[in-house]
């Protein structure tokens, strides 16, 4: 058994008096593709926001590769090798596609807050950015400002920014949301390609994507994980069928 890439212990989150995440325990193994599914409002996105430190947890602890990262700021988590994407594209609108990705590689290459390096001369940063732009299929749009990209292109850029730092743990929040069937297929192929050899945690609504991609699945219902297992195991779990999957699951 490999070490845990990510370990959540009794994580809770309340907004005011409403508890959204009600004691989540979750172990994500290294290099596995782990999907989190659940009905709307189950708290999937909130869980992502807790893991990536967008919100502080109310109680409980989060470990990343064996290190306690509870209470750190987002950029500190990022620097420790966990990177996330957003459900609604969260990009640098006025910067070109190239600059969007290059910004995301700078820290991991050690340039930090440098104002003594000439950015355009940093071959390692440009080369890495260009490789990623090619991987996400946006080479033709390299110089285009991010704000004028199409929806699907912005989604691809979102993934590009997320993987650019070379983080070993990748969190993808609904990478195929709002896409047509063919776009979804492209996006799945992209996710598969760029997360090769990495730990992937994803929230996804499209069951065909989930069952096609995930090694293991956790089912989140009302802020609690009611089951975790391989796709085959999840299919068999009666509680899951009742709580969430229903007919949709039967079709998958």
């Amino acid at each position, binding site marked *: 058994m490999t070490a845990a890439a990510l370990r959540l212990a009794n994580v809770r989150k309340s907004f005011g008096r409403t508890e959204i995440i009600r004691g989540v325990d979750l172990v994500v193994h290294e290099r596995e593709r782990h999907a989190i599914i659940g009905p709307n409002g189950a708290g999937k996105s909130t869980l992502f926001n807790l893991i990536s430190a967008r919100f502080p947890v109310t109680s409980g602890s989060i470990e990343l590769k064996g290190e306690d990262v509870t209470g750190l700021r987002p950029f500190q988590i990022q620097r420790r090798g966990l990177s996330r994407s957003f459900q609604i594209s969260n990009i640098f*609108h006025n910067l070109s596609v190239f600059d969007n990705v290059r910004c995301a590689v*700078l820290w991991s290459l050690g340039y930090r807050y440098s104002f003594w390096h000439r950015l355009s001369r940093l071959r390692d940063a440009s080369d890495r950015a260009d490789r990623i732009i090619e991987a996400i299929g946006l080479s033709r749009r390299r110089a285009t400002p991010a704000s004028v990209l199409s929806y699907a292109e912005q989604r691809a850029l979102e993934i590009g920014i997320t993987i650019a730092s070379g983080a070993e743990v990748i969190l993808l929040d609904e990478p195929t949301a709002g896409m047509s069937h063919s776009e979804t297929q492209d996006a799945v192929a992209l996710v598969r390609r760029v997360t090769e050899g990495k730990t992937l945690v994803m929230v996804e609504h499209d069951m065909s994507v989930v069952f096609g991609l995930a090694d293991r699945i956790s089912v989140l219902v009302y802020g609690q994980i009611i089951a975790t297992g391989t796709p085959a195991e999840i299919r068999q779990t009666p509680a899951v069928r009742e709580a969430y999957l229903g007919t949709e699951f039967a079709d998958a």
Partner: protein
Amino acid sequence: MKTLFSRSRLLVLAAYLAVIVIAPLLSPKGYWLSLLCQIGISTVFALSFNMLLGQTGLLSFGHAVYFGLGAFATIHFLRAMHEHSFSFPVTLLPLAGGAAGLLFGIALGYVTTRRAGTTFAMISLGIGEMVAASSLMFPGLFGGEAGLSSNRMTSPGWFGITYGSQLQMYYLIAGWAFLCILGMFALTDTPLGRMANAVRDNPERAEFVGYDPQWVRYLMVVLAGFFAGVAGGLTALNYEIVTAETLSASTSGIVIMMAFVGGIGHFAGPIVGAALITVLQIVVASVTEAWPFYFGILFTVLVLYAPGGIAGIVAEHKRLYDAGQLGRVLQQYLLGLVPFALCCLGIVTLVEMAYVLANSSEPGNAPLHVFGVTLNAARPLGWAPPVIAVVVGGFLLRLVARRMASRGETVVTSLLQRQA
């Protein structure tokens, strides 16, 4: 790959260098030279301001703090040199201003950059007021109402340059301005410079690519403080007197206008804005007492109709030119020129008449001479010609604008077709 000094950029740089070297030789008048000096100082100040607004998305209402404190530090240094008779090359003295700006940036920036957006703007306003108030509270440090003065001619300078003449002073300003412009431009091509843009666009995402947006903003404020301080140092040397006005809210306001009028979206925008506003301030002020009024009109119209400033207007027309549409648009402009001029003339006449009337000492007689015609502002009928000019001009301008709008659509569609 574009590098910092590609051939076209070197060309622009060389042309700019030529302009600043030759400019003072164009007219022997002292007036011209002092105008150029002021433009040089304003350019550095406005560019340093735009490091915050244009590049980092921080609207500062208190940027004069760094400019003013840089100026006071420099004048103190100069006075100390005279008093304790030690020597330091005056050529390098603007660095004293820069150091002061940097240090105050380190101290004050820590407070101001805790938050972005409106909060930053408000805190910068508060700190600006605080520093401006202390300048009057501590007359020992700031010289009170009269300010502090000194003499920039100290020990024999390098190669016998003493900055005794205004021309030497001009070249000192030009040299430092050129260095500062290069420095600030180089900064746009660094990891910090690009991350400042990223933080401006989306601070949250910047955090999720490993950067602390607060730290990015802080460093930019500190560096902008340095350049503003250098500009302050130059102003201290140029005028040999520094008053509380250099760090007042009105100075902070002027620099916002310079950056905005020139265009905050382009590096060169504030350079153009600084030159234009300085010229307006000095030239228009020498023609009419009502200059702040015109200035207000210009600023309002520009922000309303060209939020990208002059640089934005140029960029837009460059796009039209690239699409081969510039000629058609220029024809429309030509058509609008006469009504526009008529309208402007009417407005200016109205403002001047109001001014003459308000300052008239003789009841019933407030004459204004326009193009050899005398209008009496004290009589209602005297107001008729400018009112008619504004109404007719405005009406015609509207017609042209409508025509342009409908033509504009065809321009836009053909632009889109070309892109597709």
